[in-house]
């Protein structure tokens, strides 16, 4: 079984180089083949071929092949970077923007390394090392504080997924196919045509299909599997809620506040100060507001409107809504700050021209202001998402502690609950790896999209 993977890697290596390199030669094909095999061999060597062991299931073998493919691809990408440098293809303007200048210090080779060494040592010890250890832990059964551990291969991962290797391959392939299909359609259709607009709708649907595919892949529990699907749903609901509310609110307030008006600076300060508030304090403040006995929200709803609001900590929708509201309030100042800066770059002459052409205020906003803000929107999308993934932990810990019945337990909260409170390091680490993959996905999406789809018009 292992041989199939290695032979596959040996064949894919030259193919990858042939597709991506400017100059191709038999020597390069040979190197690529060897590098791909080496990359693919890393994970079976590190894990002792456990995915192909006699008692392993189809899903285990799937993981083993997936890791081999990932290792081969990473090795090939690194090799391609070397080839590109040899071809002189690396664009100095992108990666190394502006830092290579005429002159520069001509001192011993060790001087820049000395200057960089504190940064590199800290990054190596406190980021790279724990990252590698997270992957190691995720394949083990380890208790917190216990010296011994047992290798469990991929079972920490397979138990949060559905137990069906066929579907586990099919669903992501369908989602990827939908995304690429929509992209192909968008490129082929003429801008402005009905077909192009339909392709735009299809692109959104394709993006949504990625979420649906993930939903279908996570196990709903039962049959010895861990119910990770509810955690996934909570994370999606709460993250999307925070990002949507925080960004739409931030843009609306900034659009109101960016005008030249007497006292503008004071207004701006009064709008952005929650930036300095911590997620923990945000949790405390909204804990007070929504408190079922002493909070003003319940009291006002009851005495003014006669609505008997249930205890939010026992009601899933209310609990999630309270978390979203508290987090969106906290991040609002940050978003206003950036949108205020972004609104300074909106081309004023275009707005004046649109006024003369008789465009309505709404048309001016959607046709001129929004496109000009797209780089900021895109940047905020990523930072807000990061906030919603991680910083929300403190807010949840103060407001609901995951209640009711785990309905406000998002991915990061579950990692701490499993890994620290239950002391189950291996399972917690496996969930960390899932979150890690999500973060890498968002970041790569950011790198790919910024520059291509985002408008950098104006100055």
């Amino acid at each position, binding site marked *: 079984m292992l041989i199939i993977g290695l032979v596959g890697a040996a064949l894919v290596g030259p193919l990858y180089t042939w597709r991506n390199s400017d100059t191709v030669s038999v020597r390069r094909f040979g190197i690529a083949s060897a590098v791909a095999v080496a990359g693919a061999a890393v994970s079976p060597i590190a894990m002792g071929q456990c995915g192909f062991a006699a008692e392993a299931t189809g899903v285990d073998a799937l993981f083993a092949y997936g890791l081999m493919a990932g290792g081969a691809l990473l090795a090939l990408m690194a090799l391609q970077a070397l080839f590109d440098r040899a071809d002189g293809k690396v664009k100095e303007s992108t990666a190394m923007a502006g830092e290579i200048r005429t002159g520069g210090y001509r001192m011993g080779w060790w001087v820049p390394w000395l200057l960089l060494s504190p940064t590199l040592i800290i990054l190596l010890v406190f980021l790279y090392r724990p990252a590698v250890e997270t992957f190691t832990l995720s394949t083990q059964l380890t208790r917190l504080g216990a010296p011994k551990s047992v290798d469990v291969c991929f079972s920490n991962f397979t138990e949060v997924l559905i137990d069906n290797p066929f579907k586990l391959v099919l669903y992501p392939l369908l989602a990827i196919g939908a995304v690429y299909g929509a992209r192909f359609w968008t490129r082929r259709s003429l801008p402005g045509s009905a077909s192009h607009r339909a392709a735009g709708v299809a692109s959104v649907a394709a993006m949504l299909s990625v979420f649906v595919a993930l939903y279908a892949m996570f196990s709903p529990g039962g049959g010895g599997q861990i119910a990770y699907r509810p955690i996934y749903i909570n994370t999606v609901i709460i993250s999307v809620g925070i990002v949507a509310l925080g960004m739409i609110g931030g843009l609306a307030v900034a659009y109101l*506040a960016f005008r030249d008006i007497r006292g503008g600076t004071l207004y701006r300060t009064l709008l952005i100060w929650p930036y300095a508030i911590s997620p923990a304090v945000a949790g405390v403040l909204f804990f007070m507001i929504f408190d079922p006995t002493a909070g003003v929200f319940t009291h006002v709803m009851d005495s003014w409107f006669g609505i008997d609001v249930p205890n939010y900590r026992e009601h899933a929708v209310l609990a999630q809504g309270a978390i979203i509201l508290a987090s969106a309030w906290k991040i609002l100042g940050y978003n206003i700050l950036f949108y205020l800066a972004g609104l300074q770059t909106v081309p004023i002459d275009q707005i004046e021209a649109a006024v003369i052409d008789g465009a309505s205020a709404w048309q001016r906003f959607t046709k001129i202001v929004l496109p000009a803000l797209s780089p900021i929107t895109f940047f905020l999308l990523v930072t807000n998402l990061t906030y919603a993934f991680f910083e929300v932990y403190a807010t949840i810990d103060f407001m609901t502690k995951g209640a009711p019945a785990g309905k406000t337990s998002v991915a990061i909260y579950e990692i701490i609950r499993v890994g620290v409170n239950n002391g189950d390091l291996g399972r917690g680490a496996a969930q960390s790896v899932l979150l890690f993959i999500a973060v890498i996905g968002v970041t790569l999406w950011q790198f790919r999209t910024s520059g291509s789809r985002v408008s950098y018009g104006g100055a």
Partner: protein
Amino acid sequence: MAGLAPGVQRRGMVRGRKWPFHLGLTATALIIAFPLLYAALIATQNNPEIFSFRVTPGTALRSNFEAVWVNRDFAGAMWNTVQMSFYVTAGKTVLSLLAGLAFVYFKFRGKWIVFFFVLVTLMMPTEVMILAMFRMVSGFGWQDTMTALVAPFLASATGAFLFRQHFANLPGELLEASQIDGASPIKFLTKVLIPISWNVIAALSVIQFVYTWNMFLWPSLIIRDEARQVVQVSLQTLTNIDGALTYGPLMLAAIIASIPPAIVFLLLQKRFMSGFAIGQDK
């Protein structure tokens, strides 16, 4: 459509009636301030006053303060947090300055590898590896120490790249003039680069100070000794005083815990905004 001449029309100038904007902005500012104003009211009240939903300041501010500051030693937690935030902010700034200096003003083999080594850490948030880091730092025997709170956060890709970009946009003559004077790189950094970089330094410092001050998850894991805890986590002990939930002290503590980052933010707001405009330049 009078007054469209360039130079006369200021950006986003409001034409016509202005009071709707004043009204809208005042209302928005009040809505945003509401959670804090409400907490300030509660901070002055004792539990009976809170349950009667009085909207006037209560009589318990002093006793609430004593419960927080004296009985629970919130002052100690504040001091721990001041130290942690100061060390992290100062350390990160210095390390980022040194890294920016090396990236921009030196040519050396393997620079692009170092560049990618640092760049990749942008997609490695501490939170996704927090379990492994908790185990590793505990293994160092650093539990309940300031080192555990500070050391992991001393380096940052964001800071290094911010200074790299800022230095790269400065005129190259600065270096030439300094080299003619025979100044060392460190002298060039302290005498030339830092004095003209205060806006960027201030922007980075505000971001780092607020970020560090507001840290919750890592201190809650690695610090178990209440006397060494930071304020954000110490707030949790105030949800329970003498077996009952007392709202007043909790709200007061939340406000006190927010004062230092708010002051730093307000004091450096102007520099922050202008340093930020530089950082945003492509």
